[in-house]
């Protein structure tokens, strides 16, 4: 874990004091709502349907157990006893009183956390993947550079009022679990033959109203130039990005309008002016930050554990959970555990209660070096669990409803808070997620179906990443009532793809049936162990469409 030094502490504390003063000036009427708006957004504070919502940053999704306990404390004392983990590895509290915000931020500052730039038209939380530093397929740990980038982008005065929000993700594994092609800047970290760290830079990806995959703007960027290159991209965007239309203000629209070559020429010309400047990273700085991420003192273990083997063979339920919720680790004898926040009807995707948070913190302390990760699929991860301890972890997680064996399956739904909370939403997300989860509650069937991602967004802003779900559901407003448009064939990772719309939208009541027909079509056409998205790619949309709309007509 990165630990704050005096500078980091001072910055966060001063920021809390500054925002406390701004809140007081808002309450006294000295600041108008229009003047307060960008200030509160840059401190993570939204005004939602029912109350203020506070989004707290979890940089690159890494959390210490004591930080999780503070989140639990905030949920218990300042909210309605739960928090919502987001697709950008952050946590949101939905029922916050404006008068308490500064006190909450002070509690966060005490455990080296903040809510800075979790919203607003600025550089947002830098994300990686939940298994950074431990994944078996990782080339190197992307978190030191993510932390360096986090610091550089924090209150960077030139880039606080960009045309629109700006999201950066880093990844360095065979499987791109950070979805870097969906980001304004996506960075892929690798080494050349000589061992030099290099970056492949993608730019202009994003979901929202106009979903576009990022395009490569530079190959083999030496790591030392990370900050100057990002600065060049941001400066070109800040100067030339559109500001006349909120829906055309993301960098993807600028890249599309200019074309990637012309955009790259602008960036390269800007970069040429600054690349040799003081922003060039030093070995010392990399080492200083990387030291914070040195692996914990793992035990020397055999890769197989006799007791674990016995438990697997004797407890089919446990074995099923392991088959979905346990990921390979780069250290023999260890594994990473995914705690599913998608139990179905008992809680909306990503929602975790304060007592669950405390149990997760305890599990991390007892079994896993006190570390927790947040996956962009909204699940929690214990990255370093000895295989010998998996059974005990599973049992304890089961007690508190965090052991649903559905990671990567149809009910591991990604969903935004939707119309129940969000003032932007056209339609509700949570009841749709839960009606589908209820329909597919049979675990045998779910496991039989294999990997299917289902993503739900309550509006065009696409916080639920519906475009990249194998099945995507988008809430739309038709004459004041809520309808749902369905896409299939989307995918994240290295084979990223945007889903295609199957046809006219459905009512909320129809959605579970529609999903049923899609899944049955898949089952009918599936060849051997093929995944849902592969079947879609092979046979196209037509058989799916035909079945869905024919059966709907028949039942009408």
């Amino acid at each position, binding site marked *: 874990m990165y630990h704050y030094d005096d500078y980091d502490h001072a910055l966060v504390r001063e920021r809390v004091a500054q925002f406390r003063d701004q809140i007081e000036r808002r309450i006294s009427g000295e600041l108008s709502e229009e*003047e307060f708006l960008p*200030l509160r957004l840059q401190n993570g504070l939204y005004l939602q349907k029912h109350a203020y919502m506070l989004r707290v940053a979890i940089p690159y999704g890494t959390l210490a157990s004591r930080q999780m306990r503070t989140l639990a404390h905030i949920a218990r004392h300042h909210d309605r006893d739960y928090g919502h983990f987001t697709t950008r590895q952050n946590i949101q509290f939905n029922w916050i009183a404006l008068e308490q915000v500064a006190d909450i931020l002070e509690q966060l500052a005490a455990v080296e956390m903040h809510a800075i730039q979790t919203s607003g038209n600025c550089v947002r939380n830098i994300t990686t993947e939940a298994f950074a530093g431990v994944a078996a397929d990782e080339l190197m740990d992307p978190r030191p550079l993510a932390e360096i980038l986090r610091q550089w982008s924090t209150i960077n005065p030139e880039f606080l009022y960009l045309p629109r929000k700006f999201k950066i993700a880093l990844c360095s594994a065979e499987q791109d679990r950070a979805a870097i092609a969906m980001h304004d800047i996506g960075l892929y970290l690798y080494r050349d033959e000589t061992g030099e760290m290099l970056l492949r830079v993608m730019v202009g990806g994003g979901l929202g109203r106009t979903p576009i995959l990022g395009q490569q703007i530079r190959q083999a960027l030496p790591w030392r130039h990370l900050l100057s290159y990002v600065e060049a991209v941001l400066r070109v965007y800040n100067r030339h990005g559109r500001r006349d239309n909120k829906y055309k203000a993301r960098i993807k629209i600028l890249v599309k309008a200019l074309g990637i070559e012309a955009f790259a020429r602008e960036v390269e010309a800007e970069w040429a002016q600054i690349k040799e400047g003081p922003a060039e990273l030093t070995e010392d700085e990399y080492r200083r930050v990387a030291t914070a991420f040195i692996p914990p003192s793992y035990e020397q273990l055999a890769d197989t554990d006799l007791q674990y083997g016995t438990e697997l063979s004797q407890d089919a339920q446990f074995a099923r959970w392991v088959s979905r919720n346990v990921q390979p680790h780069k250290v023999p004898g260890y594994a990473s555990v995914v705690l599913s926040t998608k139990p179905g009807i008992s809680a909306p995707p990503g929602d975790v209660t304060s007592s669950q948070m405390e149990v997760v913190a305890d599990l991390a302390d007892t079994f896993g070096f006190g570390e927790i990760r947040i996956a962009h699929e909204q699940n929690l991860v214990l990255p370093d669990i000895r295989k010998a301890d998996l059974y005990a972890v599973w049992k304890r997680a089961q007690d508190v409803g965090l052991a649903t064996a559905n990671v990567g399956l149809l009910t591991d739904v990604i969903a935004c808070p939707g119309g129940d909370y969000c003032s932007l939403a056209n339609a509700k997300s949570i009841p749709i997620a839960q009606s589908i989860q209820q329909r597919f509650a049979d675990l045998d069937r779910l496991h039989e179906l294999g990997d299917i991602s289902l993503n739900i967004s309550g509006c065009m802003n696409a916080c639920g990443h519906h475009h990249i779900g194998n099945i995507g559901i988008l809430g739309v407003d038709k004459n004041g009532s809520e309808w749902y448009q369905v896409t299939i064939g989307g995918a994240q990772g290295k084979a990223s793809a945007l889903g295609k719309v199957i046809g006219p939208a459905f009512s909320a009541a129809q959605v579970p049936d529609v999903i049923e027909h899609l899944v049955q079509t898949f089952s009918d056409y599936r060849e051997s162990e093929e995944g849902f998205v592969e079947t879609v790619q092979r046979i196209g949309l037509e058989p799916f469409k035909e079945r869905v709309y024919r059966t709907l007509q028949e039942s009408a």
Partner: protein
Amino acid sequence: MNNLIKLIDGQARIIHDDPWTLISGHEADLPGGPLILPLAQWRERQAVAGAETSSHLAVCLAPDDEPESLTPWLGVLPLIALEFPSLRDGRAYSQAYLLRTRLGWRGELRAVGDVLRDQLSHMRRCGFDAFAVRQDKSLEDALKGLAGISVLYGPSVLEPRPLFRRRG
């Protein structure tokens, strides 16, 4: 009366006798005295006026004007103003940064428009040294916004070395 704060030798001062008049639109009858003109108008006047009166003609760049276009005139311009049409339009921060660090502008760089207390420290760090605070706001209050947060990770016009080069 301009509601003006200036940094003089790094010290913030409230200015009571600022002589400049900011012309925002294309006004037919310009008042007398020193004027800050939009780029196109400034070019016209500059062409007519020549060198002797140019010390009374300053330019104000709109956010989509290129600061590079001022390069030939940096030696004669008495002042450059950059406009914030809304506090949420951040283009002038980049313009200021470029004028200071790349184009070598050392004269007065004035923020005009939606200039408010809570953005002043960002403006200062991007190289502004004069702040025409919005008329309805108190300058005494605005002064409190100049310092901002004492720690800055990245570089600024005032301190080009990012924190990691000073961290020790």
